[in-house]
């Protein structure tokens, strides 16, 4: 790892100011960024730790929505987001306990790893990503693997999840990495059903609109019979072929619908 300057501001305003330095990067839990820096794939001049910003931590429950500070750890979401059980359960199955004690929701969403869990939860829930500058709908936030709508130096200060009528996340574990080989988050909301798929597409997290249309007709696993995603656009690697991932998308969506009830 190359040497860098370290700053730990205690307010969002100070963090935004500190991130104006050339090649400065935000540090959440460091569970992705520190490994990237060790490999010298990132070499920031300065790290601005968000972990000292009290206003960016915690889970609150206000009128049908769960709001989570951008620097809240996965463990704190697992323990505190009981008002949205499928979300708390998802957070409680990220990586392992030590990773969950450090990794944050803001870091996960900003990173937008194509196999990460939070992007599926945010997209299926129709969450709103709140930054120091604006509010971004999940539908506009994810822009392909490792790419988001965030501008340079923009900080995710919080995320607002409307609590759906029913929801479930099915993660098919890739046991070596602890990430999802494929994960499907299904949420049934007042405005319709949303199905978000992670781990599968070369474009990163996506909504499976054919499944959503079928489930808007009848919310049952049977309604998905005969539907499949196009295997050509799936990720194919040593852990699973394109066809296998496409198959898993169908199976996991059915399981999620059955479990959501």
């Amino acid at each position, binding site marked *: 790892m190359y040497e*860098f300057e370290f700053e730990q501001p205690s307010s969002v305003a100070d963090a935004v100011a500190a991130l104006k330095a050339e090649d400065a990067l935000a540090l959440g839990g460091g569970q992705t960024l520190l490994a990237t820096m060790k490999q010298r794939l990132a070499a920031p001049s300065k790290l601005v730790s968000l972990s000292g910003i009290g206003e960016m931590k915690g889970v609150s429950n206000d009128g049908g929505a769960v709001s989570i500070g951008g620097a809240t750890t996965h463990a704190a979401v697992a323990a505190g987001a009981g008002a949205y059980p499928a979300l708390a359960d998802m957070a409680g199955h990220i990586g392992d306990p*030590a990773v969950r004690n450090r990794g944050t929701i803001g870091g996960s969403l900003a990173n937008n790893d194509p196999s990460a869990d939070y992007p599926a939860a945010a997209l299926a829930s129709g969450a709103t990503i709140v930054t120091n500058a604006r509010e971004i709908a999940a539908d506009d936030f994810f822009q392909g693997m490792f790419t988001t709508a965030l501008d340079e130096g923009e900080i995710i200060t919080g995320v607002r999840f409307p609590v759906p009528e029913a929801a479930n996340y099915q993660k098919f574990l890739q046991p070596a990495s602890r990430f999802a080989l494929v994960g499907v988050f299904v949420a049934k909301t007042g405005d319709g059903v949303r199905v978000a798929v992670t781990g599968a597409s070369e474009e990163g997290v996506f909504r499976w609109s054919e499944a959503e249309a079928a489930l808007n007709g009848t919310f049952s696993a049977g309604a998905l019979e005969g539907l499949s995603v196009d295997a050509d656009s799936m990720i194919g690697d040593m852990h699973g072929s394109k066809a296998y991932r496409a198959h898993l998308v169908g199976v996991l969506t059915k399981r999620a619908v059955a479990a959501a009830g």
Partner: protein
Amino acid sequence: MTQVSMTVNGQAANGDVEGRTLLSSFLRDQLGLTGTHIGCDTSQCGACVVHVNGEAVKSCTMLAVEADGAEVATIEGQAAEDGTLNAIQQAFQDNHGLQCGFCTPGMVMSATALLKDNPKPSEADIRAYLSGNICRCTGYHNIVKSILAASGQDVAGIAAE
């Protein structure tokens, strides 16, 4: 260089570190606490697990400056001053929960964190909790048995493997 001060195993520890100094390097190279092992250095194996403010973390994936002001606990602080093992360590010894011992500091620190939150875990709870701790020797069976025993559960019926 930045001056950091933290409490390590109940004692004040100070030192000058670079921004990039990992907590694991600070513990091992500056404080000489080499019980915290480095297996992978990429947050996969859990050999480096210590507690920071009571929570299990992988010290290879946390900066020393981030632990400034924190209470840190490592494997060196687990036994009594005279060397008497604590209940978890003793259970590992009694149940053959280690072979080469490389993963053991991380296993014991993870087990300690688990039992603090869940004093009577099931076998499934233990296996799930240890998902980030890799052991190349034991096949995990006797580690799980050790933790069941440390939590006061009867392991007499579980065969050694």
